[in-house]
């Protein structure tokens, strides 16, 4: 271990729930996106599940709201180092959308695409079983555009670049296809507990 002379760090207690290399952002919720924030009216938002499915399906926000309400309350972790505890998102479990479209047995991965064109790749296993959501509320309020409103994907057990803002759709594939940041050197999966930040990790 290479100790840094004179460095003590902030006073700290063991913080359960803080992955290695992360710090608690407290009340801050930094905005990190590489693109121009799009102006998408809630009435214009759509979400499509296509690719290797029995029946490609597209929802608008009103249709998505008719699915059983589900939300995520917990922590999120950004690859740039901050973690945010106790966030509350409201929306629908991704399982509800996938069940309606019917993934084919050959589907193993997905590319999540934003209305801006941004993409992220995810193993299908990371999107099912109550581990991923499409959300349009934060703390009971409509999700702000800079945080992905009208609606975004949330996959809280992975680094947050996977939780695609302004989500437009999921394309189910039988192979892994790197998304935007994964093509720019980031890790294919991005598990914060294993510090899977960059492709060399």
């Amino acid at each position: 271990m290479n100790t840094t002379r004179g460095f003590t760090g902030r006073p700290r207690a063991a913080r359960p729930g803080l992955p290695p290399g992360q710090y608690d952002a407290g009340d801050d919720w930094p905005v990190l996106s590489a693109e121009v924030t799009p102006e998408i009216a809630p009435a214009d938002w759509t979400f499509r599940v296509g690719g290797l499915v029995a029946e490609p399906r597209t929802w608008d926000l009103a249709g998505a709201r008719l699915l059983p309400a589900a939300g995520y309350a917990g922590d999120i972790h950004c690859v740039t180092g901050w973690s945010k505890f106790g966030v509350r998102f409201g929306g629908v479990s991704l399982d509800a959308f996938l069940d309606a479209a019917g993934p084919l047995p050959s589907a193993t991965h997905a590319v999540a695409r934003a209305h801006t064109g941004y993409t992220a790749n995810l193993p299908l296993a990371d999107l099912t079983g109550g581990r991923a959501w499409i959300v349009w509320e934060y703390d009971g309020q409509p999700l702000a555009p800079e945080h992905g409103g009208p609606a975004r994907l949330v996959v809280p057990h992975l680094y947050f670049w996977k939780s695609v803002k302004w989500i437009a759709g999921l394309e189910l594939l039988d192979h892994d296809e790197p998304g935007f940041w994964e093509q720019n050197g980031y890790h294919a999966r991005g598990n914060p507990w294993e510090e899977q930040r960059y492709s060399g990790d």
Partner: protein
Amino acid sequence: MTETATHTAGATAPTPPARFAVPGRIEVNGRVAGTWQTATLTGIRRETPRASTFRLAVPGWAGHLPGQHLMLRLTAADGYRAQRHYSLASAPDDSGHIELTLDRVPDGEVSGWFHTVARPGDEIEVRGPLSGFFAWPGDRPALLLGAGSGVVPLMSMVRHHRARGLTVPLRLLVSARGPEELIYAGEFGAETTPVFTRTAPPGTPVGRLAAAHVAPLLAEPPAGGWEAYVCGSNAFAEHASRLLVAAGQPVDRIRIERFG
């Protein structure tokens, strides 16, 4: 699912066109990016009352492109580690050194160590360069918009442009609260327009970056158009990117790096 069918936009709705189609520009070497290296602090240069430049010798540095960043970590005696991303300030060169310019953030855990404890000879760990998205190899006309320490990766581009004697058009609009907070003030040339938001020298207007700064540059763009690079706080990034779009810059040719 009849209840959803009444509200669906149709099963055949196409995937929306990709407007943010900016591809990764530079392939990042995963092996290099994944390796922590020991860097030795060789010099500290004051830039403004709040910002200083830290020069590091990194014997194994693989080289970088302007706009790339690195990850840096400090380790306490009890094993506690703090790591942060910082933009590279220096142009790529063969000196075996890189430079970082850090703001002194109130209560900053890592920047605080740099500004109050660090001295030449200290060793830290770095990995990188990282991310090819914000990189500018000097191949396309570049319109750079930065605020505060957001100017750091843009200055690497300006320095690169100068060091290589590049002729591809390059313009920098840089915002600071006042002249005393303008990082690299002594290095700017004709390519740069400073914008002062609180106090300005006599004869210079005070006010935030505005359409009047951006519109003329987009009214007469260089051949092939500008590649725009925006770096600063989220508030600045939102403001500056909207100005660019309003002035006609395509969204798929705007790259943004926000402080988080």
